[in-house]
């Protein structure tokens, strides 16, 4: 029982990272119907931005929670700017093109970020400094949680809550909802669609960057290709929850994280990568539009 609870704790932590990345996928998809394949690489960039930021703040020499927070915010800000640049330079020109061309562009951007990353950061793994010394807190006999896991959880929850407040209760958030329903109608209501799309990319990128820094806190080896698999799985998580649906992305991420950790714990770690996809296929066969997705009937 205690093993199970321990796995659950690990799974939820890992799942909240997936959820953060999945949010960016789902928001961009909701607005542009574009699978932003480069999103996983933004997560990677987030980790590297965090690394540079911690060097600027000398956070490795004398770590403090304030510096850790600064590192997180700097990385989110820089990644948001990169997200904006990518949207403006690569995605905006193909917005009116067939969707597949936009997808290939996204793949191109993904390859560019990965290989550009190799060029700039180097192919060998870099070590992320320990911003917060690790402590283990026992919850129950046999069930422990590290303070880093707690930080991951708390930061994710805060960010998700902030996003929810933003989307539901601010003018820009409401404009985002309007744009995701209908570009044309939204622009007729005086909403600057271009601006909303840019903001969506920035928020999504910032969340992915936060995920990158949070993961780097726990497993400090970072390298330019680290975003591929988590990116792919976060996307699967977004689809699982019903793509375009924000609570769906969070639930999908958590389901995915827990399932993976359980498989690693009880079956075999080598099947870990496959389980995500088996889960996906099973759920999609039962609910073709994801857990929270609305089934859209096609009009003739």
């Amino acid at each position, binding site marked *: 029982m205690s093993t199970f609870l321990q796995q659950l704790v690990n799974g939820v932590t890992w799942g909240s990272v997936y959820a953060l990345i999945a949010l960016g996928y789902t928001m961009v998809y909701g607005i542009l119907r574009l699978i932003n394949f480069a999103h996983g690489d933004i997560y990677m960039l987030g980790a590297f931005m965090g690394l540079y930021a911690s060097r600027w703040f000398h956070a490795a020499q004398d770590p403090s929670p304030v510096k850790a927070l600064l590192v997180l915010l700097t990385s989110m800000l820089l990644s948001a700017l990169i997200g904006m640049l990518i949207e403006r330079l690569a995605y905006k020109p193909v917005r009116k093109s067939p969707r597949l061309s936009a997808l290939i562009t996204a793949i191109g951007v993904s390859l560019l970020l990965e290989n550009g990353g*190799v060029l700039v950061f180097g192919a060998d793994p870099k070590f992320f400094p320990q911003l917060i010394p690790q402590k283990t807190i026992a919850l129950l006999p046999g069930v422990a949680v590290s303070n880093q896991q707690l930080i991951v959880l708390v930061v994710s929850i805060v960010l998700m809550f902030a996003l929810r407040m933003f989307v539901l209760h601010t003018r820009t958030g409401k404009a985002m909802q309007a744009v995701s329903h209908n570009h044309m109608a939204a622009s007729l209501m005086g909403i600057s669609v271009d601006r909303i799309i840019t903001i969506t990319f920035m928020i999504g990128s910032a969340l992915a960057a936060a995920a990158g820094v949070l993961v780097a806190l726990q497993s400090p080896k970072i390298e330019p290709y680290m975003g591929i698999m988590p990116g792919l799985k976060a996307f699967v998580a977004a689809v699982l929850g019903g793509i375009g649906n924000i609570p769906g992305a969070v639930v999908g991420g958590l389901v995915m994280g827990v399932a993976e950790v359980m498989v690693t714990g009880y079956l075999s770690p080598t099947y870990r990568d*496959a389980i995500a996809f088996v889960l996906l296929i099973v759920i999609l066969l039962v609910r*073709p539009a994801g857990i929270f997705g609305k089934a859209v009937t096609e009009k003739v």
Partner: protein
Amino acid sequence: MKRVLTPLVALVALLALNRFLPTVLNPYYFQVLILVGINITLAVSLNLVNGFTGQFSIGHAGFMAAGAYGSAMFTVTWGQKLAAAMVAAHVSAPVAQGALLLVSLLLGGGLAAIFGYLVGLPSLRLRGDYLAIVTLGFGEIIRVLILNIDAVGGARGLPGIPQWANFFWVFLVATIVIALAVNLANSTHGRALFAIRDDEIAAEALGVDTTAYKVTAFVLGAFFAGVAGGLFAHYLSYLNPSTFTFLKSIEVIAMVVLGGMGSITGSVLAAIVLTLLPEALRAVKDYRMVIYALMLIILMITRPQGLMGTRELSWALLTGKKQGGRS
């Protein structure tokens, strides 16, 4: 007369080139040429699913892997012994190897086709991106399964596959898949596929059995991807699961989209360009993949419909005569 003559001429030409080319090309160029042939097969086969039928599949590497491992396992376990037995019975070695290669390719293709059928089935329920992600999932599942089966080498890979595939076989398969696609495009069945791509509901209303056609497209595409995988295995004589990642699928999709969805000549052209481009960029070493990625983005921005659109390369197009696009 033409129906018999054209294939015959093609066959003779392939055999002649098979003799002649290895003597004039250095081994590196020759290997690139072989890869071009395999990639043409892959691109055209994926085009049957993505371009013709409009079903978005991004798991082509999985089918290729299934075919590669299926055919390689046949050759390693039985094929080599059979070949030795046939040579002992005074069958000339190239004939024996060719015949067994054909059997192994058919088996590998068949195995991939079974997977294609399994992947095609959800396409009855899922559309667009959801289908895409299921195909991606299937591809990854196949790869992870291979990684975990010790009999096929797992992560160590599968060495010692005899190098039976040569220029003749690779380009024979490429020619067959192109001929099949061209004939399909001009047939009732091809029109049915285009109709599904353009408007599934309208196609169904007109009596097209969309279910059967969609699944058939998947099976056909998977079969040829499997055959391409088999050729790949029998040319490089070594297989590793890391070859068949999501990135390989992406490479093939890039060929189809860059060539123009549904354009056969476009796929062929793009397969050639996208195989040669990374090789040509080897000179700039570290910048190679960066330039490749940038060119992909720029090409998509400047020609979103692909190099060819849905048109085919033809003399009329080259000489600037007016020609109606197909689609």
